[in-house]
């Protein structure tokens, strides 16, 4: 229970505004600041909401509270030193930023990654997708008041995090994927533990789906709320579950295949209506599909080296620029690198999916109530480390 409100509130709760054409008619408008520190902004985001009664007439997300200038910091570091910085981008899914960055470096420096390392990267990133979606689905529950669903998803996330802890000793910022491979091989018995996890996960997802999305109140809260049309989804550059929830059939793992993804058999779940319910549903089924990919990858995993041979201690790629992207839990996460031939990066730009996805919030929230704003924001699943960078 919160005992003191941290929400900054405009002292004048009501202000009159002429509606333009008819100066006699006035609209009572309340301006509410949600955040920057608020239980359901999923980080530090401030949303200035203009309310007519409880209906949103206009809302504007104000971001940047978590801006640490990671792109500027990267210009001061060598290629290997940037990897820990990428952990801090999307702190719910650190492996993705690691991998996207490493792929860009590998493209720039022409490094060939051993096959085993590619498989391990796929496995950890699919596990990371599950962990990240558990946060996304769980917070859909927490935002609508179903806190129990949140605990159920976190029990699953905890299992993934324990697997990562065995792998690299960290639970949040893994720093595991490195240019040229991964930092270390899988520990003994890890594969069996991973199989045990993927064996129980789909049934756990069914239970969570039943508990949260099967509930009649949850359906009433999520269905038809925050509808993003397919045209808007493409035009606004959304990606990941937000675009796929609107029926945009676009998944980089399948449509711009990278790493060893062409070798796996999996399907891309799509939504029909583009509402909050479809976005949550897409996340649920993506988790099940991730389990299928992990199982196939574990079957095909063969012994070998996990680090490219003969890498210099200090990478200094030839001048030029390279871009690579992967499908993260939030969408297409791209890293654009510019090298001037020195051991330091000249410029790093992270194309963060959460940033682009968040831009549609004013579009989705208009005409809905304050309660729905929270649900819509939760269904976009922004991680502000990545939005603000």
């Amino acid at each position: 229970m919160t005992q003191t409100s941290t929400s900054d509130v405009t002292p004048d709760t009501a202000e009159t505004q002429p509606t333009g054409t008819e100066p006699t008619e006035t609209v009572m408008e309340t301006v509410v600041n949600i955040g920057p520190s608020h239980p359901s902004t999923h980080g530090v985001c401030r949303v200035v909401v203009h309310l007519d009664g409880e209906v949103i007439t206009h809302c504007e997300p104000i971001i940047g509270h978590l801006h640490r200038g990671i792109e500027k910091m990267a210009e001061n570091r060598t290629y290997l030193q940037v990897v820990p910085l990428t952990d801090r981008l999307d702190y719910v899914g650190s492996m993705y930023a690691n991998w996207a960055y490493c792929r860009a470096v590998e493209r720039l420096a022409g490094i060939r990654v051993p096959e085993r390392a590619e498989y391990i990267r796929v496995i950890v990133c699919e596990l990371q997708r599950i962990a990240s979606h558990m946060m996304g689905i769980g917070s859909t529950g927490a935002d609508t008041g179903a806190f129990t669903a949140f605990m159920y998803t976190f029990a699953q996330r905890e299992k993934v995090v324990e697997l990562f802890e065995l792998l690299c000793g960290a639970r949040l910022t893994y720093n595991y994927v490195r240019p040229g491979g991964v930092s270390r091989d899988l520990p003994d018995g890890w594969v069996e533990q991973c199989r045990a996890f993927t064996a129980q996960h789909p049934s756990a997802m069914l239970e969570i789906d039943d508990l949260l999305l099967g509930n009649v109140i949850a359906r009433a809260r999520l269905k038809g709320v925050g509808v993003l049309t397919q045209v808007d989804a493409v035009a606004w550059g959304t990606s990941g579950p937000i675009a796929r929830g609107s029926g945009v059939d676009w998944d980089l793992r399948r449509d711009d295949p990278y790493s060893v993804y062409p070798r796996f058999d999996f399907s891309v779940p799509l939504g029909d209506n583009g509402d909050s319910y479809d976005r949550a549903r897409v996340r649920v089924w993506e988790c099940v599909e991730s389990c299928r990919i992990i199982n196939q990858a574990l079957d095909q995993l063969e012994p070998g080296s996990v680090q490219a041979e003969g890498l210099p201690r200090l990478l200094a790629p030839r001048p030029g620029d390279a871009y690579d992207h992967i499908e993260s839990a939030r969408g297409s996460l791209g890293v654009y690198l510019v090298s001037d031939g020195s051991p330091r990066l000249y410029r790093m730009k992270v194309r963060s999916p959460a940033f682009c996805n968040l831009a549609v919030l004013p579009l989705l929230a208009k005409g809905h109530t304050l309660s729905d704003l929270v649900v819509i924001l939760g269904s976009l699943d922004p991680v502000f480390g990545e939005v603000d960078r």
Partner: protein
Amino acid sequence: MTLLWGFLWGVASVATIAGGAILGVWWERKVSARIQMRYGPQQIGPYGSLQMIADVPKLLFKEDIVPDLADKAVFKLAPLFVFGPVATSMVVIPFAAGWAPVDMSVGILFFLAVPSIEVIAILLSAWASHNTLSTIGGLRATAQMISYEIPRSLAVLSVVLLAGSLRPLDVLSAWQWWWAPLTFVGFVIYFIASIAEMNRGPFDIPEADSELVAGYFADYSGMRWASFMMAEYGSMIAASLFGAVVFFGGGWPLSGAAGVVLLVIKTVLIMTAVMWVKWTFPRPRQDQLMSFCWKVLTPLALLQLVIVGAVLPWL
């Protein structure tokens, strides 16, 4: 003399609510923990049962923060007015046949009417906080609590009809076992409407922690916050106790001290169900809540009343 007697029972009622709230919080933490695959408190006392004993001094010694822009007098007084009506309503509930703290001929009406004063106190606290989120919470609470009065009262009315009296002691002595199945729909309506009345999940829309942070008591701290908490638990205890008496015949089939024990068990079961509901369901939206009240609960309660009315001539 009556005044003194009333005062004593008032004190006893406050003590019951305070004690009940302490036990209730512990019980709720344990129940919710089991629902959520956790353990809940387990460090202080056996099964963590003394956890709340440790928490009360903490709340007492917390700084009492009053926001600068708040209407200070109203802000400070409002928590008392929230807690008062709940404690007052407790005194008319009979514990066993012929034994009610205050025997009132319109006791049932009193019980249904007095907690409604809480609405004013909630609105006062919300307005005095000078906080947009609090104000929205207070307005939501007002709309919700006034609306849910109606199905709640109608549901109780069917039992009143069967007993032919508004006096709680008469209802208890006239209670027959077959009233329970006959008025079961009424009980479910009473149960749902009571949850909305006490602003508990899933109908905790006025205080929705994910939207309004804590709604009307967002700016309160320390003991003033705790009195909101106690009022919530107090109304939960009162509503469960009243429900057990009116819809399940109090201590029936036992009588005397054993009956009182059975009544407490029934009350705890109803309370546990309230907690179970809270920790299972998501929160509906404000407009959905209102349409549920007016389009589902109220017609159903009227239907229940009609059925009971149809049975009456054959009694």
